[in-house]
């Protein structure tokens, strides 16, 4: 295994800042992510030129507090899990979250990186679905996913 090289953020995603958080929409996977302040700051510094220690130093300057490299590694792992980094050509060493948290300690000076993700719904998923005994033409229209072929089609359950 090689050590983590200089990570690069994907540029083919849409992003918007909400305070110090960033909402990222992955156009390829149709997934939305909310990066908290630390994850967002780390993501913005992933330009392909900075190594994790350099990102940690820059973050420390930006946030006026010491940011441990482990925090950066934790952020990078989460960003990689969320597919928000360009995939490295060689696999990188992963830091166990438990190990990271132990090394950071309970008195971390910065907020730990956190990424929340949702799969963007299709229009049909967003819309209200049909309920028990309502007429249906196919199963996709029913909340239960079951359209029985009785009386011209009726949703069963849901």
């Amino acid at each position, binding site marked *: 295994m090689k050590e983590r090289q200089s990570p690069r953020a994907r540029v083919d995603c849409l992003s918007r800042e909400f305070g110090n*958080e960033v909402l990222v929409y992955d156009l390829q996977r149709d997934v939305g992510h909310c990066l908290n302040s630390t994850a967002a700051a780390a993501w913005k510094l992933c330009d392909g030129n900075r190594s994790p220690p350099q990102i940690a130093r820059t973050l420390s300057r930006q946030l006026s507090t010491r940011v441990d490299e482990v925090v950066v590694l934790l952020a990078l792992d989460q960003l990689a899990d969320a597919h928000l980094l360009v995939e490295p050509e060689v696999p990188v060493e992963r830091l166990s979250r438990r190990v990271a948290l132990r090394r950071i300690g309970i008195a971390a000076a910065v907020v730990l990186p956190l990424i929340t993700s*949702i799969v963007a719904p299709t*229009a049909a998923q967003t*819309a209200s679905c049909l309920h028990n005994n*309502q007429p*249906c033409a196919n199963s996709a229209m029913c909340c239960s996913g079951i359209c029985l072929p009785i009386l011209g089609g009726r949703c069963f359950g849901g």
Partner: protein
Amino acid sequence: MKKLDRLDWAERLTLSAFGVRAGVRVNVSGLLPRVLPLLPPGWTKSHRVIVERLYSLVVAQGCERAGMRRLHVLYADTMTVARDAALDQVLAALETDLHRYTAEATSDMTFLHAGVVGWQGRAMVFPGRTLSGKTTLVREMLRLGATYYSDEFAVVDNFGLVHPFARPLGIREDSSYAQTKYTAERLGAASGVKPLPMGMAVICKYEAGAQWQPAPLSQGQGALELLANSFAVRSQPHQTLRRLHNLVRHSVFIKGTRGEAHEAAASILNLSCARERLETT
């Protein structure tokens, strides 16, 4: 489509709603007046011939024979949307499908699946899927003096303002799935007309016996919740994100599980009032 076109159509209508053009044709005279109240609020007649979606309602005619049921059928373009012996059910399917299609196809606005009321000049938004209890909460808010905007859609413009989509509330009574329609006026409330900035979004779901203890949510997390309830995020991600950004600018978010709607509604309004007082001092 050609087969459908060949049928004898008695009445037809072309409408435009939120920039989406749709057509409705029926094979029986005198049926269109029953269709008009089901169209999206704010619809206008269009004189264009080309529509984006054409609904064909074939009403079964003639006597029923023994062992054979006559079914009314609704098509959206060539797709069968509903087939039923009860015309009311087929008309309800027309309303649902047309509203859903409008929400999905419009690029003028971003539609979120949410209940909305107006309170002290701001919109209060309750995003959530079916059976999350949106309508019940909206109804309770109206009872406490809020203005009705919608029980189904938060309609957001480019500036992040929430527009009314004041269709009659579909209330499920006695825990049944069937809905009864009530206008806001019939429930003793007024319907909103003016677009409003969003003041608060409440993400909650109903759980019998739960105690309402909401927790604050950050703007980013709140925006993500709204994204999860937006109709066209896959087809219009740029616009959706931009409008959400404008929508949440001055808003607070709370999230929790609620029990009975009247308790949650009173608490939400108290929170909103407290926030208002904080802002004015």
